[in-house]
């Protein structure tokens, strides 16, 4: 697992699409100035949160769709196993705790008749102390729920490991 650790980027997915690194390269930023989700919806990305993109190997588009759905389960499983938190998955791939969003996943592909490039971006509200007024009723963080700091690197590695395992299974 090759991890590129960066301080502040516009968006880890945008950077991954621009750089097009090797499969399983992880772009991990401490902060995003223009983090986004589906339809370019803004993703609040201050320091403390976990923001990373995984460059995926060339994979059939149907398998990528399955993997995108499974990614939410991998995140929920990681949070449940590490912190005994009850997570709710809003399909296709947002993760909620106590009816508030804690994580989101966005897969972006470049393709013509086959897949040229794929990146899966993860935004997890981990060590975020508080949210702005417009988000405080809809978003939460692990720190708010657990009242303690969590280890971002450990969570990242477990998610990537889960992703590798699932991709191997569905590609067989």
């Amino acid at each position, binding site marked *: 697992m090759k991890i590129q650790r960066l301080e502040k980027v516009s968006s880890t997915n945008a950077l991954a699409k621009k750089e097009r690194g090797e499969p399983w390269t992880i772009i991990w930023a401490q902060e995003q100035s223009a983090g986004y989700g*589906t339809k370019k919806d803004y993703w609040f990305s201050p320091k403390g949160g976990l923001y990373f993109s995984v460059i995926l190997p060339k994979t059939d588009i149907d398998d990528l769709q399955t993997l995108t759905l499974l990614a939410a389960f991998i995140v929920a499983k990681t949070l449940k196993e590490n912190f005994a938190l009850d997570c709710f998955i809003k399909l296709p791939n947002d993760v909620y705790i106590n009816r508030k969003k804690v994580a989101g996943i966005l897969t972006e592909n470049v393709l013509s008749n086959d897949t040229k490039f794929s990146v899966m971006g993860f935004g997890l509200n981990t060590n975020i102390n508080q949210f702005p007024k417009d988000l405080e009723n809809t978003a939460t963080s692990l720190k708010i729920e657990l009242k303690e700091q969590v280890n971002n690197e450990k969570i990242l590695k477990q998610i990537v490991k889960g992703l590798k395992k699932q991709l191997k299974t569905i590609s067989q």
Partner: protein
Amino acid sequence: MKLKLKLNGKIYDIEVLQKNNKAVKVKVGDKEFTFQEKEEDIRIAKASFPKRNFSKKEIVAPITGEIAEIFIKKGDFIKKEKKIILLSAMKMENEIISDFEGKVKKILISKNQKVNKGDILVMLE
């Protein structure tokens, strides 16, 4: 001679190891098969490919989804690998790029339209 055969979504590695008048030895994955002498024992699959006009420059939907953005307009000259359309599907955002170079003859879809896998989206000339 090495080949890859995709059957029911699974890819098989096929290698012809030995070929003479009496026998053909073929390796599929890690298993070897030998076809002997009698001609009727060697079944040759007649491959029939669907008729397709490769001179047609059509950009088709690789996946079912909804058209989120169209980056081109009729009459544009586009180069190979140019970003044509953004297709959203189950929280995957798919940038469709062109396999061809040419002038946009017809755009058959509009923004927010739902499309099925295989639908023709854009025609070039």
